[in-house]
């Protein structure tokens, strides 16, 4: 019998009511008295020298308040990078300046050059047409490998070349090379993990406000982590003391990573509001989002897998080129390194692994974390090369995986992480059941009878999430702590506000977090509200990304609630004249062991705030506790996914017929929400596998800059999914035993789809061993032509 409340219940989402009635408060719904509007003039060339900007005609146009250029930001900090990678020679990565508005040069299409602030968007746009920008176009570095050649145009004149870092990691390279020399078989695969655009449905918005009365700035922004923005913008860009800077991220319409980062437009609106002493609002158009949101993925990889005569994996070697774009976005350097190299063991006990990553500057939009961030890239190459190896060795791809699974935990990988728990056999068993693998051949025959090719693709994945132990990431180059924080404020009548550092932009925290506190206290969930997204209300937490919210911030909330319970027991003991050690709490009642005495939750909370009969000599009045929680390890969700596709041999069109996911997320707070997270991730993964591609031409023009050209998955591009998370090996090092579920679907699904496409083509005798994403009809049809 499923639970109907507390941990494990599929409580309906309370936030839905406002979203379903049009009462949500997204950033663009916020209008501040007296606000002005900014339109950014952006570069239309990928690389160029700014010879002059003439704003005089535009300044005379109606409604124009002020026009800003890079000159207004001279002497002001640029956008900082939050992670410093050390290269294979022990040298720090190259870290070029990233001005708020371009200074001297533009480095990608969309680079902001000037900003027109006016009384309306229409007036700002009209005036922008009259700003004369004299740009001398320069040759652009677009292709990553070409950008590393000696004669390539330099993205940054003050750097020696376009190499950000050359990073090596894992086992000793000579040992790995020796294992390859001794291998019975080596499978090699070169592949592209194409550039994507996160595309949350809400474009980014920023509203900067300034109070001369209090010398306080407020930024309303579409962010996944308001405190991170406050720290980066206040301390590193604008020099505003944190106690004079408030950052609010209200309802946010999806993020998927792209709203983690500190962007130029946020700094601009905050800065400009102080300059003109009026609020400044910016709302991105979708076209602008394509040119200014940090993009994702964009790796080119060669991966080699060594096997012995019995098909045991003996070594793995990878060489990856990772595109940084024109500037380093906030966490960009960490993605191809620590979020990617550390995952190369996957679910397998490969003893020797060596990873090399070269990060490259190009004249394209900066690249940073997108749902999964490094882990989808790792999973894709590993699970594709294993599938290719199975085909080359003539063995069943599931059996080959099973043979090489890690089966004993904890397991220390050759790539620096230690898996605490997992059961990869159980998730594969579950997958075979829910995907009806046994029934595939019959379905294939049925497809073939209709003239279609059918393929089955299976893969596993593991991710490291719940990001992350601060002392560890500090050693790895992070310039931030990655703890989180929660304050549990119990009111006199017993209702509770929990102020959390995590931010909900679709994940349902407002529903799931109260389920935990309600379970611990035995009170109704409706008595508990979650407060998030406003740096003036919440403790200094680090926000939501890396599937960390419940594992890290949820743990902080548990710790704070434990403090509440400890104090409340002291009060209850006083009220019942009992020993504190004998006090228990159940169903909202404090009881005394061995007696029938009890006192209700609400009586204890009232006593805390009306302390007439209260142990004032022992404890303070009030009932409010804060906890900061720093995890001791990552969490390691894992699972097995299966995809069945049909391919139309006449057109190359691929349709996903069935998709099944068996995940191990450890303990589950709200199964309904977890299902939804997996569904969404799978949808994005199918999008990457079959449809989406962020494409630049050779001059650096973004040719997929709208929904007319960038193929977002629609409802008729995907099937119903079968998902299961009944395999649960709880995390051993956080109090809830949770692992996180936000990214799994996007990590686990692309290889399943491509493995299925290759299987379908092979079934018709096509000797196709790989097809790059997106497996569009054109690419699939071309592959079938040999």
């Amino acid at each position, binding site marked *: 019998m499923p639970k109907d409340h507390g941990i494990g219940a599929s409580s*309906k*989402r309370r*936030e*839905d*009511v*406002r*979203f*379903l*009635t*049009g*009462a*949500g*408060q*997204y950033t*663009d*719904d916020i209008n501040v008295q007296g606000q002005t509007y900014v339109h950014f003039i952006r570069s239309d060339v990928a690389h160029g020298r700014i010879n002059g900007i003439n704003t005089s005609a535009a300044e005379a146009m109606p409604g124009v308040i002020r026009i800003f250029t890079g000159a207004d930001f001279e002497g002001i900090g640029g956008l900082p990078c939050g992670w410093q990678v050390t290269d294979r020679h022990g040298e720090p990565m190259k870290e070029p300046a990233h001005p708020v508005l371009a200074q001297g040069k533009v480095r990608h299409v969309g680079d902001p050059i000037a900003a027109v602030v006016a009384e309306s968007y*229409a007036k700002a746009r009209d005036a922008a047409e009259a700003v004369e920008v004299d740009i001398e176009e320069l040759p652009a570095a677009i292709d990553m490998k070409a950008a590393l050649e000696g004669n390539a145009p330099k993205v940054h004149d003050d750097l020696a070349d376009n190499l950000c870092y050359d990073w090596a990691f894992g086992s000793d390279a000579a040992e790995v090379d020796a294992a390859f020399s001794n291998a019975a078989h080596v499978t090699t695969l070169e592949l592209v993990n194409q550039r994507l655009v996160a*595309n*949350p*449905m*809400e*474009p980014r918005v920023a509203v900067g406000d300034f109070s001369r009365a209090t010398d306080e700035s407020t930024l309303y922004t579409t962010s996944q982590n308001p405190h991170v923005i406050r720290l980066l913008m206040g301390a590193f860009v604008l020099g505003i003391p944190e106690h004079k800077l408030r950052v609010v991220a209200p*309802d*946010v*319409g*999806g993020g*998927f990573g792209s709203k983690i980062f500190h962007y130029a437009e946020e700094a601009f609106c905050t800065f400009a509001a102080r300059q003109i002493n009026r609020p400044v609002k910016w709302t991105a*158009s*979708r*076209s602008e989002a394509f040119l200014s949101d940090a993009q994702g993925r964009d790796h080119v990889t060669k991966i080699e897998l060594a096997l012995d005569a019995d098909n045991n994996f003996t070594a793995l070697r990878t060489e990856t080129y990772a595109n940084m774009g024109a500037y380093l976005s906030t966490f960009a350097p960490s993605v191809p390194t620590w979020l990617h190299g550390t995952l190369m063991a996957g679910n397998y006990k490969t003893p020797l692994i060596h990873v090399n990553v070269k990060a490259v500057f190009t004249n394209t939009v900066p690249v940073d974390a997108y749902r999964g961030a490094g882990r989808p890239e790792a999973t894709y190459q590993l699970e594709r090369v294993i599938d290719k190896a199975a085909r080359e060795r003539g063995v069943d791809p599931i059996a080959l995986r099973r043979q090489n699974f890690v089966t004993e935990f904890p397991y220390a990988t050759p790539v620096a992480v230690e898996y605490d728990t997992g059961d990869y056999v159980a998730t594969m068993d579950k997958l075979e059941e829910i995907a009806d693998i046994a029934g595939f051949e019959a379905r294939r025959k049925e497809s073939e009878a209709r003239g279609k090719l059918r393929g089955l693709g299976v893969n596993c994945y593991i991710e490291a999430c719940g990001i992350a132990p601060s002392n560890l990431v500090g050693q790895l180059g992070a310039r931030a702590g990655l703890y989180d924080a929660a304050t549990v404020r119990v009111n006199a009548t017993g209702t509770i506000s929990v102020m959390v550092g995590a931010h909900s*932009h*679709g*994940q*349902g925290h407002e529903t799931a977090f109260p389920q935990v506190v309600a379970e611990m206290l035995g009170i109704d969930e409706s008595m508990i509200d979650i407060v998030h997204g406003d740096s003036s209300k919440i403790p200094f937490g680090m926000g939501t990304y890396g599937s960390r919210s419940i594992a890290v911030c949820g743990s902080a909330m548990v710790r704070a609630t434990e403090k509440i319970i400890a104090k409340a027991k002291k009060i209850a003991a006083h009220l019942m004249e009992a020993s504190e050690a004998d006090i228990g709490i159940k169903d909202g009642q404090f009881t005394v062991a061995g007696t029938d005495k009890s006192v209700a939750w609400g009586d204890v909370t009232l006593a805390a705030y009306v302390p007439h009969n209260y142990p004032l000599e022992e404890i303070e009045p009030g009932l409010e506790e804060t906890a900061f929680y720093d995890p001791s390890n990552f969490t390691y969700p894992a699972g097995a996914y299966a995809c069945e596709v049909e391919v139309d041999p006449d057109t190359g069109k691929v349709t996903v017929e069935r998709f099944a996911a068996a995940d191990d997320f450890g303990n589950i707070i709200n199964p*309904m*929400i977890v*299902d*939804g997270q997996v*569904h*969404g*991730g*799978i*949808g*994005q993964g*199918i999008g990457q596998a079959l449809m989406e591609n962020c494409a630049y031409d050779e001059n650096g023009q973004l040719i997929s800059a*709208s*929904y*007319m050209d960038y193929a*977002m*998955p*629609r*409802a*008729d591009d*995907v099937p*119903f*999914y*079968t*998902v*299961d998370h009944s395999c649960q090996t709880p995390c051993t090092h956080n109090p809830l035993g949770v692992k996180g579920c936000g990214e799994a*679907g996007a990590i686990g699904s692309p290889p399943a789809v491509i493995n299925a496409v290759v299987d379908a083509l092979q079934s018709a005798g096509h000797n196709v061993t790989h097809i790059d994403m997106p497996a569009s009809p054109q690419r699939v049809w071309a592959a079938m032509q040999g």
Partner: protein
Amino acid sequence: MTTVSMTVNGKPVSAEAEGRTLLVEFLRDGLHLTGTHVGCDTSQCGACVVHVNGEAVKACTMFAQEAEGAEVTTIEGMANADGSLNVIQQAFQDHHGLQCGFCTPGMVMSAAALLKENPKPSEAEIRDYLEGNICRCTGYHNIVKAILAASGQDVGAIAAE
């Protein structure tokens, strides 16, 4: 500037609009009905779907002046008279058909238009009808399920999890 008058969610309204003012700007900026969202600039995403004289319309694709005299319904006008969620809204909550909520108003408005012309749509008909509404959060699974449920169909058998 011209004064534009229409009926929105059953109430007569008038506000100033330029010739270039889009219906969605008129609703959001002029009438402060911010439930209708703008997710793109190419009439692809469907976050701005409203009903104009009973037809589903992308409010970013119509000038405010074109709606002169029209009956317009937005997401703010969809709940039952007592303020409770209507059957489609309730189905979206019951079946977790929304996450971040940004595409949701457009989804609900499109779903209502679909069920008006096709009270018992098949899964394929729903997916086809939603071609003009993009959601990035849900993978569409629970949106399709919610619309099936709102039309009174048994979703237990169709969308097993």
